[in-house]
Each structure stands twice: as C-alpha cells, then as structure tokens.
C-alpha cells in the first residue's frame, strides 16, 4: 500500500510533454526563419541564434544561482528567444537584443517563478523593454534589396493609406521592411496551420484576433482594413504570441473574447494612437485580464453547485 500516490486532478496520462509542444512551436516557426533569411540575409539567422543562446543561458544561470530545478530542456526558453529575435529589425545591435533577452527571461519569467507562472508573455516583455530603451534602433528597418516603391521606404503600417491591392503579393510574401520574423505572412500562416493540425493551438484566438483587426480597422476608418492584417506584427502576434498557454484564457469563449479584444486594441492603437504598431500592447494588456476572463467564462460543472 505504501506505493500509492495521492495527487490532485487531472489524472490523465499522456505522452504530450511541454518539451514536445515547444518543439512543435519551434518547427512551426522555422518557415518564417527561412523566409527572413531569404528576405533579410544571414544576419537574421545570426540574431535568432544569439537570442536563443542568451535566453537559454539566462534561464540556466538563474536556476543554478537560485538552486532550482534546471528547466532549459523544456525548450520554452528557446521559443522565447526565437520570438524576441523575430520582433526586432535585422539591423538591431546585438547587445541591445541581448538586453531584451535578459529582461524577458529574468524579469518576466524567472522572477515570477519560471515556466507556467509568468503572467505576461516573456517575449513581449523583451520587445517592450527593447522598444522603450532603444526607440530609434527598433524602428530603423533595414529593407530588402531592390525596388523603390511605397513599401521599400518605410514599414507598411506607416504608409497604409498609399497601399492598394497591387501591393498584396509583396505584403503576403513579406518582401518589405519590418521585423525579422513578422513580414512574411505566408510563412507564419503555414506555421499556424501546422500548429492547428498538430492540435498544439486552437484556431480560435488567431482567427478572432486577425478578424477583429480587419473589422475594427475598417470600423475606425483606417486605410485598407484587409491589407492591414498582413502588415506589421498581427500574424506573428496572433498565431505565436497570443496563443501562449500560460497567458491566454483556457475556455473557448474566453479565447474568443481574448482574441477579439486584442484585435480591438490593436486597431485602436494603429488608427488613433501615436505608435504605428499596437499588437504588442494589445496582447500585453489582454494578458493582464486573462484571470478575469477565465473566471467569467468558466463552465458550470454538470450538477455543480448553483451560486447564490
């Protein structure tokens, strides 16, 4: 009898581990990496590798210092590293990228207790940290070679009203200025489809997010509502960052509300705000209210107690 264990639910045995899920996410991110190397050159790859190494190293060193279990093999730090690198322009100085990595892992993740305990997405904290610290560098986009059209002079978001459907291919394939991993919509969509097929994510959040960006951009009178979802960080944010398990709602209705609200805030900032891009802020703000969304949309258990 002494070998009986008593533990709390759920009592489901599954071969799905954090490591396997994170591996799937990494695989899903690879098309965007290939696209970014084609568009921006080898430096995109170098930045991504550096970012991953720094994130893993940070987590390892911190856990060693704090005498905690070392969790670098669950690959979550690798995903964070890739996402931070995807969120900076290719011309970003390496030390500034490292500052963002350290901030993401140490401040947003480890100080709050490591994987599963962070209340906001670490990669987005890293991006915000870089954005507030190095405002010039993060908005200095290096452009792919060739072409002197509307898209080669600035990020598409700042020239949104000059764009039309003739630019669609360029936007869709990502050959325009922007952050490393955020420009090539088709590669990101490919990754998203892979994640959905592998049942790593449910498509609710990305669809609601992308749909509501289009809807509210149109409702607020922003230029080119449909094209706007292919510009900036909507795809990257909606597919890879808003779907983070730890910082998104667990119920289906909750996910829908979360995605819609993210899109609403994004469109609001883009159309009325000072910043050209609002995806980062939208996801971070919604991350903060996730516990309340979970509470409000929690299913009543069958035969469960009725609230007075």
């Amino acid at each position, binding site marked *: 009898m002494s070998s009986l264990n008593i533990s709390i639910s759920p009592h489901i045995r599954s071969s799905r581990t954090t490591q396997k899920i994170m591996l799937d996410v990494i695989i899903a991110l690879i098309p965007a990496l290939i696209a970014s190397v084609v568009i921006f050159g080898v430096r995109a790859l170098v930045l991504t590798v550096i970012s991953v190494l720094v994130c893993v190293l940070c987590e390892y060193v911190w856990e060693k210092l704090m005498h905690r279990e070392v969790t670098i093999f669950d690959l979550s730090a690798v995903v964070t590293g890739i996402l931070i690198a995807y969120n900076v322009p290719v011309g970003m100085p390496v030390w500034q990228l490292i500052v963002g990595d350290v901030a993401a892992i140490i*401040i947003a993740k480890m100080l709050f207790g490591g994987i599963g305990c962070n209340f906001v997405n670490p990669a987005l904290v890293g991006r915000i940290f870089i954005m*507030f610290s*190095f405002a010039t560098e993060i908005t200095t986009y290096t452009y792919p070679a060739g072409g002197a059209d509307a898209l080669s002079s600035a990020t598409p978001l700042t020239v949104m009203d000059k764009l039309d459907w003739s630019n669609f291919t360029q936007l869709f394939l990502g050959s325009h200025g922007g952050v490393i991993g955020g420009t090539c919509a088709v590669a990101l969509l490919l990754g998203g489809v892979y994640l959905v097929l592998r049942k790593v994510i449910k498509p609710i959040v990305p669809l609601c997010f992308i749909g509501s960006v289009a809807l509210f951009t149109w409702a607020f009178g922003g230029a080119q509502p449909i094209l706007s979802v292919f510009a900036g960080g909507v795809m990257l944010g909606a597919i890879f960052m808003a779907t983070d398990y730890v910082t998104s709602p667990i119920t289906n209705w909750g996910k829908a509300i979360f995605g819609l609200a993210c899109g609403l805030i994004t469109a609001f900032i883009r159309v009325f705000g000072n910043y050209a891009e609002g995806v980062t802020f939208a996801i971070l703000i919604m991350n903060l209210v996730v516990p309340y969304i979970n509470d409000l949309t929690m299913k009543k258990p069958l035969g469960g107690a009725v609230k007075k």
Partner: protein
Amino acid sequence: MKRKLNILANGIFKENPVLILILGCCSVLAISITVSGALGMGAALTFVLVGANVVISLLRKIIPDKVRIPCYIVVIATFVTIVEMVVEAFLPSLYEALGVFLALIVVNCIVLGRAEMFANKNTVADSFFDGLGMGIGYTVVIVAIAVFRELIGSGTIWGYRIIPEGYQIGIVKQTPGGFFCFGAAMALLVYFMNKKGKKFDPRIGCDGKCGNCGLGCKNQEDNAALLAASDKEAAEV
C-alpha cells in the same frame, strides 16, 4: 542616549519609510532619475520631517484631537514653504529638477505619517531623532536607486559620464524602470534581513486590521480565527 540612537537606526533600517513602510513612493519613483536631484529631495524631506516632528511634538498637548490633521498640515506646509523658497533662491537648478515634487512634500505620507504615529505621542527630543532617522532612511534609499538608474539609464553619475554615449538602457530611467528598481530594492532589503537572521516581520506598520492585506502573517491567522469565532457566535444567536 542609546534609546535615541535606536530611534535613529529604526528609521534607517527596521522601519525604513520607503522600503518597509512603503510611504512616499511617488517622489521616490519620480525623483530617483538623477543622483543630485535625489540627494536634494532627500535633504529637503529630512529638513521638513525634523522640523515638523519637533514642532508637532511641542504642540502635541495643545492641538485638539479632532482637528489634528489640519493642524499637522499647516505646520508641515510652513516648513515646505521655507524649503521651497530657500531652494528657489539658492539652488535654482535643483528647484527646476524637483519641480512639483518639492511642493508635494506637504502631502508626503512619511511626514504626515510620522506626525500621526510618532510625534504626537513622544517627547520633542525623541521626535527629533525619529524625523532625522526617517529622513536619512528616505535619502539613503532614493540615492541608492538613483545611482543605479542614472548609471544604467543615462550612463552618468552626478553628471559625470561613466558609460560611453550610446550604451544606455533608456527604460531604466523611465517610469517602468523606476517601478522595477523600487521592487528590486525592496526584495533586496528583505533578502538581506532574512539572511542576517532578522526574520522580516511584515507586521511592521500594521494596525491589526487585515482587510485585504495579502501578507498572510500570523496576525492575519489570529484575526481570521477571531472573526470566524464571532461569526459562529452571531450565527448561534
């Protein structure tokens, strides 16, 4: 004399106004961008604290209990006005740097808090040392945070460049960085207090009314037990 020194040290360590009592955070966050500004703010606050504590302690038997807060405010405002005029006349650059926060010392929780918690119950000499200790405690913390924020955020200390231009992390001198440094300083103090064997007691500055306090100390368990007992009693009645 030992008692006086204890009161002085109390304000610097055990009941540090900023990190333990968590009072006066507004000016700490706003002014700790430069070391010179922080030192000026600390000096101004120390002067007001000492002055207000002494005068309120002198008047503690005369001030009617019902209108004591307005009376404290008048005394504090007097000293703040003196400081403001002196700083404006002799240190115009500091006056510029501190801006509205110099005048806001009037409503600084530390000054009002010490008047209410200490000066109106203790002798003039004790109040003097309490004000001095609290002022020094505030100054030490705000200057320590400012050293870090100015070094990392602007690359300078007291205006002298230490980290070359272009290698600053701007967020540290902005508001989010201020909050972060403040939290980190609090955590460090608790860490060192625990390490020294002086278990950090979260009840300091606690009046026993736990309400929504999340510290989860023993007080709270006792109070919860009392509340449960009284609830049970009420239910039985």
